[in-house]
């Protein structure tokens, strides 16, 4: 089952903040976040691991609630370059298999 992302789409003005959520029905080992610009390949943003370890870009922050199998990506002081589709990818404990969500389309306006 694909993780559920919310919202499906969001429009922001430059400088505004946004939160993108990812929710799974299964126990998770890790959550990955990627951004894909139109016509380009997805690019890594962040990994959050069970136990609290995080790896990713300095300007991106995210949280991982292991008990609720939920993760949130926080985009603060958004810039035009933040526009794109954001995907969360989840790996269940013991499955060794990634499942990506359907994506959140984010557009930042000047």
């Amino acid at each position, binding site marked *: 089952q694909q993780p559920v992302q919310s919202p499906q789409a969001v429009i922001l003005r430059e400088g505004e903040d946004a939160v993108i959520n990812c929710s799974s029905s299964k126990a998770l080992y890790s959550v990955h976040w990627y951004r894909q610009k139109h016509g380009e390949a997805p690019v890594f943003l962040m990994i959050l691991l069970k136990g609290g370890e995080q790896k990713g870009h300095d300007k991106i922050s995210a949280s991982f609630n292991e008990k609720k199998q939920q993760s949130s990506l926080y985009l603060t002081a958004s810039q035009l370059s933040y526009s794109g589709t954001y995907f969360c990818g989840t790996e269940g404990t013991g499955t060794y*298999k*990634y499942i990506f969500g*359907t994506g959140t389309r984010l557009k930042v306006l000047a």
Partner: protein
Amino acid sequence: DVKVTQSSRYLVKRTGEKVFLECVQDMDHENMFWYRQDPGLGLRLIYFSYDVKMKEKGDIPEGYSVSREKKERFSLILESASTNQTSMYLCASSLGGLAGGSYEQYFGPGTRLTVT
């Protein structure tokens, strides 16, 4: 920089043809993945491989097979292409083998396959 390359950006094939999509990575990654991307459905895993000659089915393996004879190369094969396999196909690689959840994936540019 990690580089993942795919053999074609655009491909047009006829129904029933055998189709090969090739992916090559240059960073000695253990894991390689094939996804298809369709509007509104996100990235769906077709197959992944955690070592040479090793493969695991993803969520939508039907109609596809894979081959990994060398560590750097992962091929996706459509034995008999059908119109419902028209899609964007993305290859990715990562470190980690079966512990790959700790490592980011690097994606190739994608192959847009049209089956007519």
